[in-house]
């Protein structure tokens, strides 16, 4: 009996000791900090690379890449053998569909592990990944002649694209200054693509102003189904409750009206998407969707928009040119051969300001194989691969002048009515129209949610004022 009691006591003591022992690492782990954040600013690993440039400097190394499922990626993967042959570096890669890609990348980078040396990202992601120190500044690598071959030719990039992926990491400061946190690899301008068949049949012409676009969208929705285009509506634009709803057509038209997402005031930012002009514009945009947009618009991502144009369900598409291009390629969809491009409506003063998406390649600041990863980035954004990708694969919208001027590329793109003309018409005014700031994803997700509410019948003024009130303390 006695023994029993003693044993029971021992067990209790054992449990207490175990609990204490297990809480020790817990507390020390907490005290040891929160992971990440130890970004050192004592020079770049690029400085360690000396001697003459050599593609085979790191032969035998294996690097890991995280890639998004995309036609550009298909071209890259198909050519990986060429890279390995040239450098002796093996590339392992994981591909994720876009819906999960950025969550996977964000979680991976925030964990502070170097599970991937290189990855795809958009210019907006630099605003979220740059400040915590997750992205390697590629500037020192580009400037080091031992690390970078002469044929890479930085001046061949379209300047707006290199600027778009360069930032000082300070909210509100314009792009183009500070570190080069990613390299442009492919880009997308947001323009209008339309179904020539329905335009010819109904005697329509592409809209030159936003008023015309709204009217045109309504006209198509009313008349096209009776003219042999079953279930066709006017214009496909994104509408899901996601940041991705704001940046294509909506932000492009918003910018053509000279409207701003935020204004810089002193040290902070002030939401400006609730200015009286912006309220009018947003209400008109929601109205356009209601009268001429897709049914179930609030579930629309670029996949639905793009496939509706291809399936002859949408008369127009106001989104990335690539979203239309992949439907317009011969044999790709029922509408292929009948898809033409147009710069889209001009702003009141004739502006063709266009928002763009830059598919870029970045390097993990925690990578232990930076020099090999830099060789990969050089090759993937180099003239040779990008030219091949543009001509033999579907890596269109070249980031390099040498490729967009290439006769073979222009010949290929000539088959698509209006593509080259549209590209050239908007090229000079195409840039990132958002104000760079860390809370980009919160701001644009909430903005998309507000747009859905306005579409659902709520008054634009109060909804956008509420949005601005919500965002002000977060960005200010």
């Amino acid at each position: 009996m006695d023994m029993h009691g003693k044993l029971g006591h021992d067990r209790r003591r054992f449990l207490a000791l175990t609990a204490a022992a297990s809480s020790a690492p817990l507390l020390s782990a907490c005290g040891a900090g929160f992971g990440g954040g130890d970004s050192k600013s004592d020079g770049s690993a690029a400085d360690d690379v000396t001697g003459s440039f050599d593609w085979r400097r790191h032969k035998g190394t294996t690097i890991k890449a995280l890639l998004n499922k995309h036609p550009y990626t298909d071209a890259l993967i198909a050519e990986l053998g060429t890279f390995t042959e040239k450098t002796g570096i093996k590339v392992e890669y994981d591909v994720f569909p876009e819906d999960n890609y950025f969550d996977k990348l964000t979680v991976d980078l925030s964990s502070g592990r170097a599970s991937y040396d290189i990855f795809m990202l958009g210019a907006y992601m630099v605003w979220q990944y740059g400040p915590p120190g997750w992205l390697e500044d590629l500037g020192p690598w580009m400037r080091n002649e031992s690390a970078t071959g002469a044929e890479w030719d930085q001046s061949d990039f379209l300047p707006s694209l290199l600027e778009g992926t360069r930032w000082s990491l300070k909210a509100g400061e314009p792009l183009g200054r500070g570190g080069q946190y990613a390299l442009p690899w492919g880009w997308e301008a947001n323009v209008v693509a339309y179904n020539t068949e329905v335009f010819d049949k109904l005697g329509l012409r592409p809209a030159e102003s936003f008023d015309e676009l709204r009217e045109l969208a309504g006209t198509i929705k009313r008349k096209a189904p009776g003219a042999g285009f079953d279930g066709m509506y006017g214009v496909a634009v994104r509408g899901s409750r996601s940041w991705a709803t704001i940046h294509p057509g909506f932000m492009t038209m918003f910018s053509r009206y000279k409207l701003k997402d935020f204004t810089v005031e002193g040290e902070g930012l002030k939401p400006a998407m609730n200015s009286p002009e912006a309220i009018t514009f947003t209400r008109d945009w929601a109205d356009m969707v209601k009268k001429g947009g897709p049914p179930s618009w609030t579930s629309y991502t670029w996949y639905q928009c793009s496939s509706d144009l291809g399936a002859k369900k949408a008369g127009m598409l106001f989104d990335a040119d690539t979203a239309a291009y992949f439907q317009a390629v011969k044999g790709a969809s029922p509408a292929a051969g009948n898809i033409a491009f147009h710069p889209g409506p001009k702003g009141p003063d004739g502006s063709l300001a266009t928002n763009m998406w830059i598919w870029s390649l970045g390097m993990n600041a925690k990578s232990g194989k930076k020099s090999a990863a830099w060789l990969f980035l050089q090759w993937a954004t180099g003239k040779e691969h990008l030219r091949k990708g543009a001509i033999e694969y579907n890596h269109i919208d070249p980031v390099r002048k040498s490729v967009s001027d290439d006769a073979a590329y222009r010949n290929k793109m000539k088959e698509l009515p209006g593509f080259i003309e549209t590209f050239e018409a908007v090229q000079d005014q195409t840039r990132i129209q958002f104000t760079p700031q860390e809370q980009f994803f919160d701001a644009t997700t909430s903005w998309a949610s507000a747009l859905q509410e306005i579409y659902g019948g709520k008054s634009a003024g109060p909804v956008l004022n509420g949005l601005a009130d919500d965002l002000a303390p977060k960005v200010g």
Partner: protein
Amino acid sequence: MDSSTEADHGAASSDDAAVAGAPEKASAAGPGPGAESEPGAGPGSGAPPPGLGAARSVPRWRRTLRPYLLIVPALLLTGGILYPFGLGLYYTVFDFAASKPQPDPVGLENYRRIFTDSSFWDSAWVTVLYAVGAAAVETVLGVAVALLLHRSTLVGRVLEKVLILPLMIAPVIAAIIWKLMLQPSVGVVNHLLRPFGLGGVQWTDTPTGALLSSIAVDVWVYTPFVAILALAGLRSLPTSPFEAAAVDGGSWWFTFRKLTMPMLWPYVLVAVIFRFMDSLKVFDIIYALTEGGPGDSTVVLQIRAYLEAIRFQRYSFGLSYMIVLWAVVYLAAMVLVRYLGRIQNRAAEVPK
């Protein structure tokens, strides 16, 4: 057969003795294991005759260690759950975010912000609507389906097997399939409704429609779960009360209300508790179907926590949401489980 039973018995009694008679055994135990074992007591078990002097062959240190070894898996499991939980709880008193990698302690500021934020109360309301709606519909439908399947016809037996199919589909996949089917222009649902003049319904495009559609998908996936538990309950009910009711000429409704339901309720309540807890924590179905839209109409607590912690990288704030959700689920579970205990006691006629 015989010998193995004996061995089991021996093992059990040795365990008892390990506690009760430890001192005398320690002195009596010879160094050679199995020295006193009887033939046929089981290979290598060294089991002594039941009763006195049991487990003499097991060294003392092993006997003393046994209870601790036995709780190791439980301890590991508890630690595995409590460690991240504790860490998460600890993080909530900071302002840890991607933009603040070296956070400052902020006390209960995160919780204060949550409870004073109208979007939290909106989300809480939507979450409760969803959970109550889904659990209620699933219970009613589940019990109804179970009653139908209980008549063991051939059709019933076949349907019973088919019924489990939705449960085998990952909810996120079910939600994506339903999203395609509910799509107004190409979806099959509106195509089938067209002859009835309902071809233009925009399922997930309005706040109410989105919530009801999400609940409908939840019901589609999980009704079989309730049905199967209810069916198992129905099959275990005694037949005599029903026979007595039939002899006395009780109507179907009377029998159902006065006999079936009271006796079945403890089984159904288990299913209800599971479904209610799960629906409070719903993420996959809504995220795949509406992403929380239109507007904020289907942003349940879990989705808001996810957006804050993962998408917007405000770890502490997102975690605080999760802790609040945990507290809600914990309290709801406590109340329901206590209620379940009462019901079960009543069903078993155990006086309090």
